[in-house]
């Protein structure tokens, strides 16, 4: 196996990690600020992809679709925050799980009601088709490179939003003490709606970007949701930094495991067995990673309130 291939796979892992980060950052933000477990985050991801595909289909422009997908998911997020989510902040996690589980059912069936059961078409813009040569003899799809870039921009953007802006200050205050920030005269419900909508925009953005690479179909959000949860739990719930590290870890471990475990097992087993045992283990690998991390650090790698 050549070095270039290993490098390329590493890049693939990073890219998968960055995609997961876009998804996970919104989830972790919402949990960190409002203490809310939002299972319907995956549905917002799906909405983003559907709106993007639909709008891109009508206008013929991916970029318009991307904008619509992100904003559409944001609006959708704001609406569900206003109608449902805000009643859940004072409830325990159990009620939150149930309510957002119900939202998944509503969103999934609602979407297939509106858009039909068939997957939608969404193609990458011509501008970003094709591959580029990178140092080390790796040729890499331009679009995936752009996803990595967008992920980095989001990470920087979130960092700036939280550490440098007035809203970020309020968000940080809200994480520490909800009553205090209310006492400071900040309109807390508006802040929460804003944060939830930001999370939704991030999910919608992830959905639109990945809709190009994936099948835009009902149910596309749930696998991503589970992965995103694995990511934020590994990273430490509520921590953006943790989400970034967790996402990269999960992305790289998953990618490397998928590719190298079967070859590893072929050293000790015959080929067919090695392939099936190796891939079985590969599909369990990230959960194994999560269990190990939590067994050692029960609050994840970067506990938010330490």
């Amino acid at each position, binding site marked *: 196996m050549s070095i270039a291939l290993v490098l390329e796979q590493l890049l693939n892992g990073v890219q998968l990690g960055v995609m997961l980060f876009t998804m996970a950052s919104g989830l972790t933000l919402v*949990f960190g600020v409002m203490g809310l*477990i939002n299972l319907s985050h995956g549905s917002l991801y799906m909405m983003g992809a559907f709106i993007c595909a639909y709008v891109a289909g009508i206008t013929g422009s991916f970029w318009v679709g991307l904008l619509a997908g992100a904003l559409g998911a944001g609006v959708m997020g704001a609406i569900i925050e206003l109608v*449902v989510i805000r*009643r*859940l902040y004072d*409830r325990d*996690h*159990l*009620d939150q*799980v*149930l*309510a957002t*589980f*119900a*939202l*998944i*059912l*509503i*969103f*999934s*069936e*609602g979407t*297939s*009601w509106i858009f039909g059961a068939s997957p939608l078409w969404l193609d990458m813009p011509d501008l970003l088709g094709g591959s580029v040569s990178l140092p080390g003899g790796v040729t890499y799809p331009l679009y995936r490179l752009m996803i990595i870039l967008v992920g980095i921009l989001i990470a920087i953007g979130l960092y700036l939003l939280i550490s440098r802006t007035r809203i970020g200050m309020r968000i940080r205050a809200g994480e520490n003490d909800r009553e205090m920030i209310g006492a400071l005269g900040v309109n807390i419900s508006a802040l929460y709606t804003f944060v939830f909508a930001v999370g939704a925009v991030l999910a919608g953005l992830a959905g639109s970007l990945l809709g190009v690479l994936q099948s835009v179909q009902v149910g596309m959000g749930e696998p991503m949701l*589970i992965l995103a*949860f*694995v990511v934020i*739990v590994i990273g430490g*719930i509520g921590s953006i930094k943790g989400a970034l590290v967790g996402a990269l870890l999960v992305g790289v471990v998953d990618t490397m495991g998928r590719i190298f475990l079967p070859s590893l097992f072929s050293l000790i087993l015959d080929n067919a067995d090695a392939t*099936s045992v190796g*891939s*079985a283990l590969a*599909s*369990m690998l990230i*959960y*194994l990673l*999560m*269990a190990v991390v*939590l*067994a050692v650090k*029960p*609050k*994840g790698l970067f506990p938010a309130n330490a």
Partner: protein
Amino acid sequence: MRKLSRESWINSVLVLLLALAPLCASLLDEPYYVSLASRVVIIAMAAVGLNLALGFGGLISFGHAAFFGLGGYVAGVAAYHAFDGSYFIGGIPGSDQMPVIWLVAVLVAGLAAAFIGVISLRTQGVYFIMITLAFAQMIYYFAISFPTYGGEDGLSIYVRNSLFSLDTSDPLIFFGICFFSLMLSIFFTRRLMGSRFGAALTMARLNEVRLATSGVEPFPIRLTAFVLSAMITSGAGALFADLNGFVSPSMLSWHHSGELMVIVILGGVGRLFGPVAGAVVFVLLETFIGGFTQHWQFFLGLILLSVVLFANGGLIGLLAGRSRHD
């Protein structure tokens, strides 16, 4: 006994209806409703198991489908080996005797829960929710890709396993077995919660520090509750496999864990008969809205959402008022 409270009345009516409905259905020669009732009863029992951890112990397990599925797989695998006379790893023969299967199912799930619990119970809150989910996912993916017992296709049980000399293939008799198991698990939960262990578990949920200050380690209490809860759920899983004549990885999927949680919450968290009410309503909704429209899940979602938003305390809570602690 004290005067029956309103909740006890509701519970009694619920149990009576659940017991009588299949009898009537059987008299009217509608065996379908008998097996539907068996389904309700089995799912209720699985939820009773979850309720012990989630409702009484405050341990929000998002991975109980793992134990449900393990129970199912024990039944499936035992029957598979009994059917073709082959052996499980290490020359263990199969069995088609329910008592043997139940015992093994409960032991296997108990061991699994002990292992999962030792690691998971180090964490709390959302972390606990997610790590239990992670373990369940591991088992799920293993089941899908492990070919010996059918992988995703699952495993069929061609002849329903037997219990003494009863005719288990008779829907009404099978219902009786399930109903008896459900009542047993509820009775067990009730005794348990009234015992010293129950007092400690309640305290572990309400105030862990108080429990420790009282000289009782919270961890073993929680672990035991988690294991017992898994055992009940796996017993239900074994029955479910027998009801369906079939076991597959979908029993292990996270959707199933979610559904079990939904049933517990729907009925009322930490209410003895909450899971029963939840299971009745959930299965009936699934069955009858499914007959109306292909978008039945949409309406199921709406109903669930309104229950959380407007009926805090679940159905039993809605009917019986706030829970009474003594």
